[in-house]
């Protein structure tokens, strides 16, 4: 069918393309601006007018971060919790999602109910805090890992994905005498990779981005601080000064240090974001597929 474009078509296209370009700019610009500020001389930034390109190049803002042993340590903790948390998270999710995906599993209904119900209620902050305290999780590295082992949403995504695989796969493996553990890891797991990649992204990003658990449970332990929490501390000191002409004040302290909190915050923001931006393109092609397949079937 070959059709001439009507006036309406042209107007709609024009509005749509211009609006979407606007959306793209508004979404991306703040990141580019922070990037430019992070590479710009701190005292020069105070004058304003930095958009997406630095005016006076410098690595000074990053040197401050790298030379700070606390932040260096925080980066290590962030990486450790992300890697360990993601690997353990995937393993645990598979162990739960696979039995729940089996329609012939006798305990499927009660176990599903116990698990899924947790998506809809929470005891609240204080009871959670008291539980972690009585489990001895406070002020340990494990408070990052143990409570986050299982995300019910991830279980639902993987379970739905496994359910979409032909059940004859499992039956024939059983006839061949494979154990359930073997079926899970040698047959189901490789076929579930798109869903696994999706939840790996979710779990990994969750760990990398998390700061609240540090703030609440581990703030007494500077050695267990994470990058996001260090950024939060800088942020808290900046937002306390709102309305008190922060840039001006910082200008005074900058004379001695050659940096301003604003510039350090910018470079810290970039450091806290960079790994996500680097991993994201590789996993992105999976998540829409993994997610829509999973959620549509799950309903």
């Amino acid at each position, binding site marked *: 069918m070959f059709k001439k474009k009507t006036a309406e078509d042209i107007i709609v296209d024009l509005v749509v393309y211009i609006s979407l370009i606007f959306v793209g700019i508004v979404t991306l610009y703040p990141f580019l601006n922070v990037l430019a500020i992070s590479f710009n001389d701190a005292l020069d930034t105070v004058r304003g007018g930095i958009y997406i390109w630095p005016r006076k190049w410098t690595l000074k803002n990053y040197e401050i971060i790298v030379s700070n042993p606390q932040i260096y340590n925080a980066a290590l903790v962030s990486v450790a919790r992300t890697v360990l948390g993601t690997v353990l998270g995937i393993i645990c999710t598979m*162990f739960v999602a696979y039995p729940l995906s089996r329609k012939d599993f006798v305990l499927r209904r009660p176990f599903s109910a*116990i698990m899924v119900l947790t998506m809809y209620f929470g005891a609240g902050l204080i*009871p959670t805090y008291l539980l972690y305290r009585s489990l001895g999780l406070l002020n340990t590295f494990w408070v990052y890992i143990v409570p986050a082992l299982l995300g019910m949403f991830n279980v639902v995504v993987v379970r739905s994905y496994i359910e979409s695989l032909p059940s004859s796969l499992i039956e024939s493996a059983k006839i061949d005498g494979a154990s359930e553990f073997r079926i899970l890891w040698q047959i189901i797991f490789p076929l579930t990779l798109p869903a696994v990649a999706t939840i790996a992204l979710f779990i990994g990003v969750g760990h990398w981005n998390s700061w609240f658990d540090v703030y609440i449970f581990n703030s007494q332990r500077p050695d267990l601080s994470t990058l996001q929490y260090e950024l939060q501390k800088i942020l808290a000191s900046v937002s306390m000064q709102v309305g008190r002409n922060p840039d001006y004040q910082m200008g005074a302290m900058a004379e001695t240090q050659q940096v301003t909190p604003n510039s350090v*915050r*910018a470079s810290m923001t970039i450091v806290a974001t960079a790994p996500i931006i680097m991993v994201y393109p590789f996993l992105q092609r999976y998540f829409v597929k993994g997610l829509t397949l999973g959620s549509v079937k799950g309903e």
Partner: protein
Amino acid sequence: MDAVYYTESKKTFWQKVKEQKELVLMIFPFVLYVILFHYVPLWWWVIAFKEYRPFQGVWGSEWVGLQQFKDLFSDSGFWLAMRNTIVISFLKLVTSFAAAILLALMLNEVKNMLFKRTIQTISYLPHFVSWVVAASIVISVLSPESGILNQILMSLKIIKQPIVWMGEGHYFWWILALSNVWKETGWNAIVYLAAMTSIDPELYDAASVDGCGRLQKIRYVTLPGIAPTISMLLILNVGWLLNAGFEQVLLLRNPLVQDYSQILDTYVLDYGITMYRYSYATAAGMFKSVVSILLVLFANKVAAKLNASTVV
């Protein structure tokens, strides 16, 4: 196959459990885990009816009945937090729905796949950064001296003086709503785009034959096509009505907007963790949880009535 089912149906429950012991073994530790981490904390609700002192322990602490709740409901700060919670989550609900639907509709009209992918990829990006990073960006964009927003408004001569955006309560509510739109719209649009791909293309052809233009097709085919998704998500979101976005508020709030930024979650945090009033804060948290559960049940009832898929 029939024969297999026949023999299986004769087995007792325990025989089946025994037969599937590997599956049971696999999942059972996690059932215990979930009970420990999600159900056991409910037990601590008991301290909402006590005056909990850590050194006396839960049982050693004195019972005070409903005193904590009486104090809570007579505290004007609690009702302020309640007002802010509802206003903020309502603002966020309306803006995020409108923005996501609009973005999905626009993306759906784009025929150039490269352009569509590029915009989508950019639009998801903020979803994957933490609220700490997002808050840092928001503060930077709104900064009175070097923030881009003030610079643009001043160069367009709309304002003469830079505005201290983060210093005014009413602005603060909109900053929360709009920064949430900035961060989540691309991500939220995915589900509508998925719903749009399942609309039968013949409907569009039929609409063309009937003489519908582009806008009429959106109005009469696309929107009705995603209407079930919209209504289901709206209903589900009712359960989140008391969640105004803990991290976002915690990171963006400052002393100047205290009366507009205190939400139920920050109220619990301030009283419980910062002032060690465990019992009082637990009462506040319990109130929030119970109301949330009631809202979810209500939403679920409505969803069932509307024949949408139920959740619980």
